[in-house]
């Protein structure tokens, strides 16, 4: 399936650095991946691993002094790495769009929902009445009851779940080909998270778009994604389809993340915590950034940064100790006929 599918986005060796007064923070340090048409691609990792900065680099929304210093971003056949803001604006909304974690901070508190939604169509020849009609349709599409009335309200009159729905309506207004969802459900309660995940999934089908889903929650990844990249310290450590990730992870970090989760079958037992904490991005350890916390660490890990290696079709891992990690068992059983 993946071999023939069309690429909507290609990121090649992306490097995004934040120069400080006397240190250089390498937020994204050589990230490559592709997103195919109609798939949901997950970026998972802990805070500070560079998943959000990767997205901001793609969108051209990096905060100063952050800068893409190397690499290429190709969206739908067009190189957008060094586009000017004016040109990027033409792409945002139509080709790519974004929803952020906290809708309250990305919506305007002083404009009515109606006004914010109608802005999406500002550079179309639509009349005011048509724009308004489209705005009502958008709100209905994301499941907001009585949209004609609700669009006259302000964001503070909306609940958290409703705000996120409005945000999604805005992001999808111009039918983008790629939606970047940066922790879209993290600020929401579980029952609302469930609703929003279902909404995003059904809209993806309806609008035939691709999604990059950024999250730290492996549960959300399991429920939403087709393929996943696990990030750590600005690098992709492991990339594969979602079933392989949960059934047979091969990177010690992926494995450690999964084994540190509480397991209902093993209630009360000590959890397999990962020792230590993530490294400072300005002072990365030499070699593999994960070695100080890694259980498989060998001498070579401390000296040389491992390269991304494809160990099976569609499954790449960045690790020196692949022979040791071959014995890893994931948290689900591999399905029949699909051995990794």
């Amino acid at each position, binding site marked *: 399936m993946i071999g023939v599918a069309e690429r909507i986005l290609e990121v090649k060796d992306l490097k995004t650095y934040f120069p400080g007064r006397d240190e250089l923070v390498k937020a994204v340090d050589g990230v490559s991946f592709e997103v195919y048409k109609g798939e949901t691609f997950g970026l998972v990792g802990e805070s500070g691993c560079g998943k959000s900065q990767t997205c901001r680099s793609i969108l051209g929304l990096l905060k100063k002094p952050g800068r893409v210093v190397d690499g290429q971003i190709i969206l739908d056949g067009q190189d957008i790495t060094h586009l000017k803001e004016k040109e990027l604006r033409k792409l945002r909304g139509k080709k790519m769009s974004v929803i952020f974690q906290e809708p309250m901070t990305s919506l305007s508190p002083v404009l009515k929902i109606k006004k914010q939604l109608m802005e999406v169509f500002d550079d179309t020849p639509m009349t005011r009445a048509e724009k308004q009609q489209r705005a009502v349709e958008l709100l209905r599409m994301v499941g907001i009851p009585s949209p004609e009335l609700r669009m006259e309200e302000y964001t503070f009159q909306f609940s958290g779940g409703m705000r996120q729905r409005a945000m999604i309506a805005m992001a999808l207004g111009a039918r983008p080909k790629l939606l970047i969802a940066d922790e879209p459900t993290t600020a929401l309660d*579980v*029952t609302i998270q469930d*609703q929003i995940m279902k909404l995003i999934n059904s809209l993806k089908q309806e609008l035939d778009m691709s999604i990059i889903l950024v999250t*730290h929650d492996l549960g959300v990844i399991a429920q939403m994604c087709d393929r996943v990249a696990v990030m750590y310290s600005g690098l992709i450590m492991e990339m594969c389809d979602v079933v392989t990730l949960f059934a047979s992870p091969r990177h010690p970090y992926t494995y450690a993340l999964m084994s540190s989760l*509480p397991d209902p079958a093993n209630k009360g037992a*000590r*959890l397999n*915590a*990962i020792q230590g904490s993530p490294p400072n991005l300005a002072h990365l350890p030499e070699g593999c950034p994960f070695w100080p916390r890694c259980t498989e660490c060998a001498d070579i890990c401390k000296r040389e940064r491992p390269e991304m290696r494809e160990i099976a079709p569609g499954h790449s891992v960045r690790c020196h100790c692949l022979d040791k990690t071959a014995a890893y068992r994931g948290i689900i059983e591999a399905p029949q006929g699909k051995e990794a």
Partner: protein
Amino acid sequence: MADIQFDYTSRSKLVEVKDLCKWFPVKRTIADSLLRREVRYVKAVDHVSLDIYQGECLGLVGESGCGKSTLARTIIRLYEPTSGEILLEGTDIAHMSARELRPLRPHMQMIFQDPYSSLNPRMSVRAIISELLLYHHVVPKDQVDQRVEELMGMCGLSADYAGRYPGEFSGGQQQRVGIARALALNPKFIIADEPVSALDVSIQAQIINLLGDLQQKLGLTILFISHDLRVVRHITHRVAVMYLGHVMELGPTETLFDGPCHPYTQVLTKAAPEMNPLKRTREYAIEGETPSPIHMPPGCRFHPRCPYCTDQCKAEMPELRQIAPSRFVACHHPLQKGAGV
């Protein structure tokens, strides 16, 4: 930590909460007072009764705004309750004055969600921990430093860090400082309000292990508040499920998760995303959102979202009643009468 067979008959009750209410008045506008409109309240905690046994870890779960933090803060008297009783080892502390409460404070301590904002950035770790030791005179002055180092060691912090400030620590280490502070006075009762929610996944497990070890070693009684059901299931002996200021269900953790009796508990357990990409179909979905706690629905609070709602539910509020040994539910039509208990 959580030995599943937790024997309640042999344990005494450390905290008894009886019919506790905490209502916050809604701010009135001039128009409201001119028109003599009734004072409205946010009923954050509304007629809650529960017992906390010596040495147990009781989980308190629910969605944001359900009143779980307010309940916890009222129990340790950070808030003045509107009505009801709070018995700490038999003494009613619900309406004690601040002065009367002072000698009891060392027995009840709290661990907060955001470790950074709950530590004074201008105080070193040594100062943060020794402040309470000195205030409550629990150890002689010349032994304070020794006790601080002992506490830090207990929480997995090197004593060399005593001179450092909170800003120099990572989130996980800050939470360890918060825990050391909560333990400083040898409390009988600890409230942990979302202690791992602000931490990264790889750090969460470290802190959960630490809390488990400490509970076992010191025989602590913990009220563990969290919205993460996986964590609650792992660490607690019993769980109370709250919705709009009310306890909907209370029971031993395993039986409650395996066979929820309240429809809301069922919704909560099913809504958490399953860690399995092969299991994506949901047999159960919930519509709607939590109503505002100012305009509470009549009858059962959950009825507008409940799939099993009947006329009785719309009219009559169900009381929390016992349906099996140590199993309580506030529902007219519990899902499995006493099943799985």
